[in-house]
Structure formats: C-alpha cells, structure tokens
C-alpha cells in the first residue's frame, strides 16, 4: 500500500502540489488524471524520490522511500529515457544491475522481460534503430527488470501506434493479474477508465476527488441522450434535464434517461418530426471530471 499524506511542493513561488493525500491499495491499478501542469509528474517524481525536497510524507508499506524501498518500485518515465547507442539487451542489463539483479538471474530476467515487451527478436539491435512504440515498450521493460511490487507509469502511451498501445495495455493487465500495484498517470481518460480500478483527479496542483471509478461514475456522472433531428425544440428537451448543443445535435443530461427517451420518441412521432439519430450515452470518466472542474481535460 502506498500512502501519500498531505504532500506539498513549491517551485520557487509556484505551488506545484497543494496538500495532496491519496492512499493506493496494494494489487490495484490506480489512475492519476489531470490536464498538463496538474501536478501528476511532480507527484510521481516525489513517489520515486527523484524529488526529495517536499512537505508531507510518502510511505510504501508503512516505510519511507529509501534506497532499500526503491528496490520495490519500478518507474516508467514520461519521456523515453534509454541509452540509444547500445542494444535493448544492454539497456535491460544496465537497469537490472542498478537494482542488484546479477549473474544467471539477470540473464534469465532479461529473457523474460524481452518476451513480455515483445522484443526478443530485436534484443541485439541498437535502440536508435527502434520505432517509437518499441522504445516505449523497452522503456517499460527497464522498469520491470527487478520485478517490482509497485510500478509507476507516467503517460506510457504518449505518441505510439495502436499496436504498441494494445501491447502495453496487455502488459498492464498481466501485471494486475500478477498482483502488482500499478500507478497509471495519463490524460487519456478512456485509458484510465479501461485499465484502472481507482482514480485521483488532479487539477492545478490540488486533488479534487478520488476513489473507485465505479463509485465516482455513480456519484457524479449523469447518463445522457444524444439527439439529432430536425425541428425538435430545445425547450421540449429541457423538460427532462440539462441540455447542451454539440455540432447540430442536443445532449440531454438526465437521471431518467430511458423514460426521457420514450417521451421524446412519442413526441416526435406525434408531431411528425424527423429523428436522424438518438442514442443513450453511458456516463464516462470524462463527464465526472467535467462535473468536478467545469472544464474538459483537453481544454
């Protein structure tokens, strides 16, 4: 279990994080979500003790993060940080040795990780010859060399092809199955929703909400109906909930979505109005964030 207790970080006069507290249960996948500059990477650097001067306390299994504790943490940085002039094998060897993996165990682990990241065939090739997706996978592989209990991933899918993205998702699922704890920072809300059990929303250095994704969806998100057609009056829809417009269509947010749909269909039939498309939209994490902050993540 990782406990982040009231941590605050200043960069000169800027407060990058303001009293953030999160408890991350062991064996779960925990999403950290927020727009650029929200403080996700700062928080991750504090967990990995890259940043050490901060207020508050971070503990892993009730112990402060020390060189000994670091042995149990694996960090996947946001940028691809590899030695480009040597092979994938040598990169994995480097990170294995840094975590005191030696001898036969080291070679065995390199083989396992190469298989896990799908680079067994390219292990002897220089990293500089790899595609972006392959580098991303190797970036993750380096963090797994010492078989850590907690894997911290900072935007691991930025700028990669769908195939590699799928591969990375499969790796994360496998890590979860193996009982590892994963912290997954991203501004791709749909990825977090797909992979994680819990989420913390960060905005401007503050944690605005956290908890189990299913509970947050229930608590904050309202189902909506997408309605596109000609002659449908907005005020008619407003009888059932809040309405917004999106590219010539209405989005109706209502707790009673199915009943509202029935009424709208009847109304349109009676008044011979042409309905081009009507769809029930399930609430998404994006809606929760919008509800909490009043802005979309990519605004």
């Amino acid at each position, binding site marked *: 279990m990782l406990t982040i207790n009231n941590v605050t970080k200043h960069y000169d006069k800027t407060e990058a994080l303001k009293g953030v507290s999160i408890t991350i249960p062991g064996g779960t996948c925990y999403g950290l979500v927020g727009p650029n500059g929200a403080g996700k990477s700062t928080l991750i*650097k504090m967990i990995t003790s890259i940043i050490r001067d901060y207020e508050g306390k971070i503990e892993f299994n009730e112990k402060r993060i020390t060189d000994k504790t670091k042995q149990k943490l694996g960090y996947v*940085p946001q940028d691809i940080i590899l030695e480009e*002039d040597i092979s994938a094998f040598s990169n994995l060897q480097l990170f294995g040795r840094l975590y005191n993996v030696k001898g036969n165990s080291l070679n065995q682990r390199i083989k396992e990780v190469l298989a896990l990241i799908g680079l067994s065939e390219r292990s002897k090739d220089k990293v500089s010859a790899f595609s972006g997706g392959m580098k991303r996978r190797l970036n993750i592989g380096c963090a797994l060399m010492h078989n850590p209990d907690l894997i911290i991933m900072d935007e691991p899918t930025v700028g990669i092809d769908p195939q590699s993205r799928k591969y990375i998702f499969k790796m994360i699922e496998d890590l979860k199955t193996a009982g590892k704890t994963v912290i997954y920072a991203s501004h791709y809300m749909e990825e977090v929703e797909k992979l994680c059990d819990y989420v913390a929303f960060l905005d401007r250095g503050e944690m605005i909400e956290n908890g189990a994704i299913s509970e947050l969806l229930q608590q904050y998100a309202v189902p909506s109906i997408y309605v596109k057609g000609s002659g449908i009056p907005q005020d008619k829809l407003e009888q059932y909930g809040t309405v917004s417009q999106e590219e010539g269509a209405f989005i109706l947010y209502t707790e009673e979505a199915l009943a509202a749909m029935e009424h709208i269909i009847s109304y349109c039939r009676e008044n011979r109005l042409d309905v081009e498309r009507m769809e029930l939209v399930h609430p998404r994490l994006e809606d929760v964030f919008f509800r909490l902050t009043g802005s979309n993540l990519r605004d």
Partner: protein
Amino acid sequence: MNAIMIVELKKHLQDKGLAFWMLILPILFTILFISVFTTGDNEAVNQEIIQSIVPGYIVMFVFFIMISMVQVFIKDRNKGMTARLASTPLKSYYYLLGKWLPFTFIVIIQIVVLFLFGKVVYDVSLGQPIILLILSLFITFTVTAIGLAMALTVNTENMGIAITQIIALGGAMLSGLWMPLEMMPVFMQTIAHFLPQYWAHQSFQDAMAGTTQVPELLQTLGVLFAIGAAAFIIAIIRYPYFLKRAVK
C-alpha cells in the same frame, strides 16, 4: 556503479568521434609537425625536436577528453537519464564515479598508445617508463577532474566545447607545447608555471631523457595533484546543483 561504468565503456568504444579526437588527430598532428620541424640535416637536433613534439602533443590532446565529458553529462541531464537514475537505488556519487572513471581509462590508454606510436615510428627514448606511467596517471587525474568540474558547471555543450578549446589550445601555446618556452616573452613564461600542461610536458621530457630528479618529480606531481584536487572539489560543490537542475 559498475553498471554505469560498463555501459559508458561500451559507448566510448563504439564512438568513432572519440577515437578521432583522442588518437587519430594527435597522431596526424605529430606526423605533420615533426615533418615540418625536422627538415634540417642535424640528426641530433631533429631527435631533440621529436623528443619535445611527441610529449607536447600528448599533453595537448589529452585535454580534448573534456569535450566528451561535457557532452556525456549535459546529454544525460537534458534527456532525463540523470533524473531517471535518481529513481533507482544507485547512490548519486556512484553515478558520478561511474561516469568519470571510464574517461580516466580512456586517457591512460590514449597516453600509452601515443607514446608507443612515438617509440615505434620515431624511436623516441622512454628512459624512465615507470616515471612516465606515474606522470601519466597524475595528468589523467588532473585533466579528467577539470573536465568533470566543467561538465557539472556549464549550461550547454557549446559552452563546454568553447572552454575546452581555450584550455587545450591556449594552455598548449602558453606552456611551450608548440614552440620552446625560451622563445616566448618572459610574462608568458611566468604564466606557464601556473598551467598543468607546462609541468606535465617538462616532466615527460625529463623522464623520456632519463634525467628525472626526485624533488622535481615530486614538485610536478604535487602541482598536478593540487590542480586536479581543486577541480575535483569544484565538481563536488557543483554536483548538487547539477542534480537539482536535472530533476526539474
């Protein structure tokens, strides 16, 4: 620390640019300058010139290792490798040593190869090889310590390269590596006494001729060590700032 050292050595061995700066260029310069300055008929004078040019260019070109040192540290800092390694159990001073030590190996190899080149091609005298080796170790420490201090202090690669040129070429000129010191103005001869190149060159020449006196050798070693130690202290002082900048 070994993990970092092994990777650094691997990278350096593959680096053709480093081989050019450290071995090919000094050999070309040595050949060129010896052919220009030994056109006279007097064999004894020619051999004397060769005995000065070979160690002179060795001393001048060992300083070019500083360019690679700056590049390695700045690249690590800018691409995030320094911060990435801070997340591992590697102690920060092992990172420094792991990066620094491979450069000392390279410089020692460079000096040995260039002396062997002088011996094989120009039959230079290596009168006191053990003293030559001791001097090589001390000048290696001095040069790599200055390189380390500079790598942890400068903001950009270009700044590091510019300063290296000033130290290597300016120091070579002022220390009598290009022409006999006696031919230069008195104030420049005085400045030479503050430069490591001067002490290394003089002592290399003495050891090659087999005329090293212990007090003079100790004086040279003392000067080289003092300059190296001062640079090393600057590097240690600068290191926390370098790390702080690397993790931002």
